[in-house]
């Protein structure tokens, strides 16, 4: 038994070790990788992804899955940009209201998502995937296929202003992560996510309103998707339907690589941070070491499989689900 406990402790740190090994490997091939400026570049590409992945973490902790992020991020980005431009075009005046506006939009989409899943008893996989398509369609309807530009220097300072070499958006994402950590560890709802993921029947038998918790989980995820959308707009200064593209693979992969179990009940937002960093370090590192681009997608896939193999505890699984 003692041996098992030791193994568990090691396994907990495996994602972090994977990250460390990757950093050392890329640094050995190209020493430029190990510079503060490059870390800042990785931080810029990780920040929006971190918020989206944190949102997905809550849902995955419950043993459900949310695949609506591409649509939700697109809608929230467009809602944010439209509100900001309508309210004077600058955060300095009324424009800051666009941020809560986008969060409300994300929350509403999440609520619809959760209610469809719980009330209509449609598996979360299908419900959220379909809602993602609805979101993409909705954002297309709102923009008419056009791009909305955000020029507000105050808002763009998230990218352009740096404190200790890192752009403001990295700190904003870190702030979001701390809030998520608080929700996960210090609130009833956060503990309930683990309870449902660990054993839904037990949670139900203990008198927990499982349906309600699930809907709240999806709402929370939607709000974090909205934060991701705002940071994605901050990164490029553009809001469009394609703002959401790629976030599904990026966030789900990050959550799993970070060591959160897809079956629910174990893992958390710090795992997700490590997972997001692993995926973005791979993405950045492959360009930095000059891997031919026809190999990059394949290598990314292999590295993800390796990372998941090392970090997941599969003893309890009779077969892979």
């Amino acid at each position, binding site marked *: 038994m003692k041996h098992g406990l030791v193994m568990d402790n090691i396994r907990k740190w495996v994602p972090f070790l994977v990250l460390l090994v990757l950093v050392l490997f890329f640094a050995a091939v190209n020493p430029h990788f190990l510079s503060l400026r490059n870390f800042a570049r990785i931080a*810029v590409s990780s920040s929006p992804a971190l918020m989206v992945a944190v949102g997905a973490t809550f849902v995955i902790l419950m043993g459900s899955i949310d695949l609506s992020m591409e649509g939700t991020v697109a809608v929230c980005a467009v809602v944010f940009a439209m509100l900001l431009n309508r309210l004077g075009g600058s955060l300095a005046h009324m424009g800051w209201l666009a941020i809560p506006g986008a969060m409300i939009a994300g929350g509403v989409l999440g609520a619809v998502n959760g209610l469809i899943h719980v009330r209509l008893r449609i598996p979360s996989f299908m419900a959220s995937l379909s809602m993602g398509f609805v979101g993409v369609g909705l954002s297309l309807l709102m923009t008419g296929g056009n791009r909305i530009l955000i020029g507000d220097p105050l808002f763009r300072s998230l990218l352009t202003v740096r404190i200790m070499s890192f752009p403001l958006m990295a700190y904003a994402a870190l702030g979001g992560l701390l809030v998520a950590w608080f929700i996960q560890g210090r609130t009833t709802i956060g503990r309930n996510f683990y309870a449902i993921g660990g054993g839904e029947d037990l949670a139900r038998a203990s008198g927990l309103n499982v349906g309600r918790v699930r809907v709240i989980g999806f709402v929370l995820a939607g709000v974090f998707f909205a934060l991701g959308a705002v940071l994605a707009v901050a990164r*490029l200064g553009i809001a469009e339907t394609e703002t959401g593209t790629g976030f599904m693979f990026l966030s789900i992969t990050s959550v799993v690589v970070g060591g959160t179990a897809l079956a629910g009940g174990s893992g958390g937002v710090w795992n997700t941070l490590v997972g997001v960093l692993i995926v973005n370090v791979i993405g950045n590192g492959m360009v930095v070491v000059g891997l031919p681009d026809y190999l990059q997608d394949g290598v990314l896939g292999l590295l993800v499989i390796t990372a998941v193999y090392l970090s997941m505890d599969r003893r309890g699984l009779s077969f892979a689900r």
Partner: protein
Amino acid sequence: MSFIKQYIEQQTINRRNLLLLSAYGLGGMAAAASFRPGFARAAGQDPKIAWSYRDRTNPYWNSIVSGGEGFVESLGLPKSALLNLINGGSSEKSLSDIKALLSRYGSGVALAADPNDMPNCRPVVEAVVGAGAYVSTIWNKTDDLHPWDFGDHYVSHMTWSDVGPSEQTARILFDAMGGKGGVVHLGGIASNNPAIERLAGLKNALKSYPNVELLAVQAADWDTQKANQVMSGFLTRYGDAIKGVHCASDTMAYGVIEALRAEGIENMPVVSYDGNPQAVDLVAQGKILATVFTNPYWGGGITAALAYYAATGFFKPSAEPKEHREFYGPTVLITTKDARDFKAKYIDSNPKYDWKDFWGLSKGQIQYRS
């Protein structure tokens, strides 16, 4: 046991009757079908106009479809008269949607289509020709497939040659770099023909600039976010050695410019391709030195117009020369000097095109490299 025998006998007779009746029915249908050409001519008077394309999220395809709508409006019809067949990047969906359209309207269809990938063009064309309808295609077609092999029903194919214009943008870039230093190229999806041609253009230009070094070529899949990440990777790898950026599309150039802005680099020479409105603005501001406009609005309108006017009998495709059946679409180089004029002419308003002037903007017959 006689009732059993009787029953079996009845059933056998019934089966024979059924077979006979079926044969009669099939024969009747075949006979009716042989009279269909008359019906087809009647339907050709007012054909349904349809555009089959990927989706509208991309500004390029958005302009293509706007052009199709512009053409439909020129006929005095509402925009909604244009049927949109959205394939979402799937060749299978493209073909099945077109087949569904054909089974609904038969020969009374004027279809404009990008078949999504080259092998899909033949089944699309064969389905349309088989139904007696009319089709014009753009972009994707295999080299062995020609409109003139299908009589009147495969009206035309248009594509764009990007090698020459891409070489021009590269030369503008190299001149801005003072004819020396390192350059990086961000390409489209590696297997896409435009991506291959635009890189070929860059390489042609490199031959006359011996002091310019191509540091790296990397596919960023036409995607703004991926281009942003690739460019920041390039900055880590090459740092100050990068003196210029050659992008295969405007959408990727936006990502590059933002990656540079994040580092506080404002004057890096960048060139792109496609001539999207936002890129033209950036050219006017000098943030992009040059882009190439392929007039997707006109392309979307004229492709629908060709199929439509062939279907109504306004012109007879088989009587036209080969350069009117397979031709290159227009390309216009936009530089910092003419960006403002260009914007006023093409972007703030769409020029009124004569949709019966099918080949006015064409750049000649398609040439095949053997």
